[in-house]
């Protein structure tokens, strides 16, 4: 496995995303420019220029026509992916920490920071699209609704859409995870899953369960309907991101010690590695080294054939898995397969 290093950013990466077909990689960093790359060879297709501050988050819609970025300059920008033109800019009250398209691409959620007297919210903005071409024909400037931070909760750090855009799941700075109706913004449920800030929420490919990562060094696989913890992955360092791999039953966790402690320890002790855990057995099954700062985000392509990690060191490392990754199986999996094969043979003979 030979990683491709993408060195397009001058400052630490904040988010890395694949599009639906996995052929493009979108990256944003603390410098003011977001980039889009071809995943096959790491060639940069272009940059989205226009923000005045750190871009905290980026997302791309299902048809790879539009990208959205949320920035610390109090704005959300909608871009055309094909030529990098800025289609629309929403002004917000506070910095935007996370943006995401709903699966249908007709709504955008934005996590607004709770600063300057604002309570912090998850706001949902609406787009009107042409039914045929999926082109955006109209943009609603005012948010559809704001989910203000509730009493007894700290502000939300991250949020994500569930299957079909039916629910919004938000991860809070105090480790709580809350669930809201995706159409009205009504509160549905909440659970205390972590003891420290939730740093990332990423959904499974089918949108029925998700993985949370937290600064308390644990990642949890959570059912979307019940908010019940299905699996827990314990590590030895604060986590910044976690994702669920399609194709294979793994999860990838990324993290490392706080950025402020990095200069005081060697990169070996910093634990700046992507960790692979088996999703079902919860064992750590491998690590990938390479970054010399904490991993701020890990993303896996929807095909499950490659993954990218963005680090505090300003690099994106794009890995295409090789054969050994796809061949790996637990002994129990192998024996189960052999048994199944034998049964098939027997039934064929009978």
């Amino acid at each position, binding site marked *: *496995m*030979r*990683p*491709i*290093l*993408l*060195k*397009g950013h001058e400052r630490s990466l904040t988010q890395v995303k694949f599009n639906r*077909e996995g*052929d*493009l990689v979108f990256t944003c960093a603390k410098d003011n*420019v977001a*980039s889009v*790359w*071809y995943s096959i*060879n*790491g*060639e*940069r*297709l*272009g*940059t*989205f*220029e226009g923000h005045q501050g750190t871009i905290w988050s980026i997302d791309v819609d299902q*048809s*790879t026509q539009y990208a959205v970025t949320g920035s610390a300059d109090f704005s959300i920008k909608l871009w055309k992916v*094909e*030529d*990098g033109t800025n289609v629309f800019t929403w002004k917000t009250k506070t910095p935007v920490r996370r943006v995401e398209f709903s699966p249908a691409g007709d709504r955008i959620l934005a996590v607004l920071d709770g600063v300057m007297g604002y309570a912090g919210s998850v706001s949902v903005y609406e787009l009107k699209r042409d039914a045929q071409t999926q082109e955006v024909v109209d943009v609603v400037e005012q948010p559809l609704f704001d989910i203000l931070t509730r009493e007894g909760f700290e502000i939300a750090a991250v949020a994500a859409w569930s299957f079909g855009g039916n629910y919004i799941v938000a991860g809070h700075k105090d480790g709580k995870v809350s669930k809201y109706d995706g159409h009205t913004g009504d509160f549905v449920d909440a659970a205390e899953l972590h003891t420290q800030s939730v740093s990332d929420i990423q959904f499974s490919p089918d949108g029925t369960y998700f993985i949370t990562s937290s600064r308390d060094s644990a990642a949890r696989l959570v059912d979307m309907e019940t908010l019940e913890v299905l699996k827990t992955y314990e590590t030895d360092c604060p986590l910044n991101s976690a994702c669920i791999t399609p194709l294979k039953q793994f999860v990838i966790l990324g993290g490392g010690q706080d950025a402020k402690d990095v200069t005081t320890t060697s990169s070996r002790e910093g634990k700046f590695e992507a960790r*692979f855990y088996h999703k079902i057995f919860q*064992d*750590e*099954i*491998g*690590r*990938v*080294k*390479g970054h010399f700062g904490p991993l701020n985000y890990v993303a896996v392509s929807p095909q499950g054939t490659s993954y990218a990690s963005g680090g505090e060191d300003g690099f994106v*490392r794009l*890995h295409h*898995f*090789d*054969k*050994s*990754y796809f061949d*790996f199986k*637990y002994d129990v999996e192998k024996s189960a397969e052999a048994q199944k094969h034998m049964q098939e043979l027997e039934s064929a003979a009978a």
Partner: protein
Amino acid sequence: MSEVSVPPTQVLENPDGTKTVVSYRVENGKKLRVTQKVREIKVTEKVNKSVASRKHWKKFGAEANSAPGPDYSTTQLGEELLLRLGTSWKKLEEEEEQKAKEAKGGEKLITCRTCGGNHYTMHCPFKDTLGDASAAAASSAAADPAVESEAAAGALETGSIIGGKYVPPSRRAGARDPSSNNNFDAYRDQRERDDAKTLKIMQLNENADENTLRYELLFPFGRIPKVVVVRNRETGRSRGIAYVTFETEEIAETALNFLNGRGFMNLILNADWSKPKVKE
């Protein structure tokens, strides 16, 4: 010339799926028959329509004026990584580390001049008993020039000071002169590839990358520490040459016999030592 009639080209279908093309031409007044055996292979690659259309998008933003293909300033290939999946990966890694440590310890970073042990001379536990003996040997050597060479040889084992005089490493017995041309190892960079174990494989298919070579061509030869495909720096296209380093010279030799003249991905390979062997 034109009066020499040329029979039309014949195409024969062979039972094994190949075609035999027999064509005639006239050259210098001689009629020549050319027989070619051709096998047609159709390679289909399925690409998503939208992905294919995105491949032709024009670059924009900071990349608006850049040439097609990855730009070396923003895109680089990292070092080869080994993702070893398994529940016992931690154990394996620890073992490897231990081995590396042992190998380092085997070189003996510190050597005692008195007893040759792995500690400083001043901390030698045999200082009192052995220290006098070596000093006596040195003094006796100085007194009797006839046994000097013998004493020097003895002193070599214990250290580099003969009769209280420092002898530079290049002057010591058994040292090689770095300025002479007949030893290549003297100032050799450890990172350089070991030509004794490295083959140069030419006439490779352009589509064969390192992984393809590893898994489809070189898998019978055990662990392959290094495969490098020579590429065009600008376009990243393979130039059809690869350097492959094997574990041992013997494996490299069997690989050479096996690979030279063998067909791989429709081309006949040409393998050779990466540098011609010096005849002894």
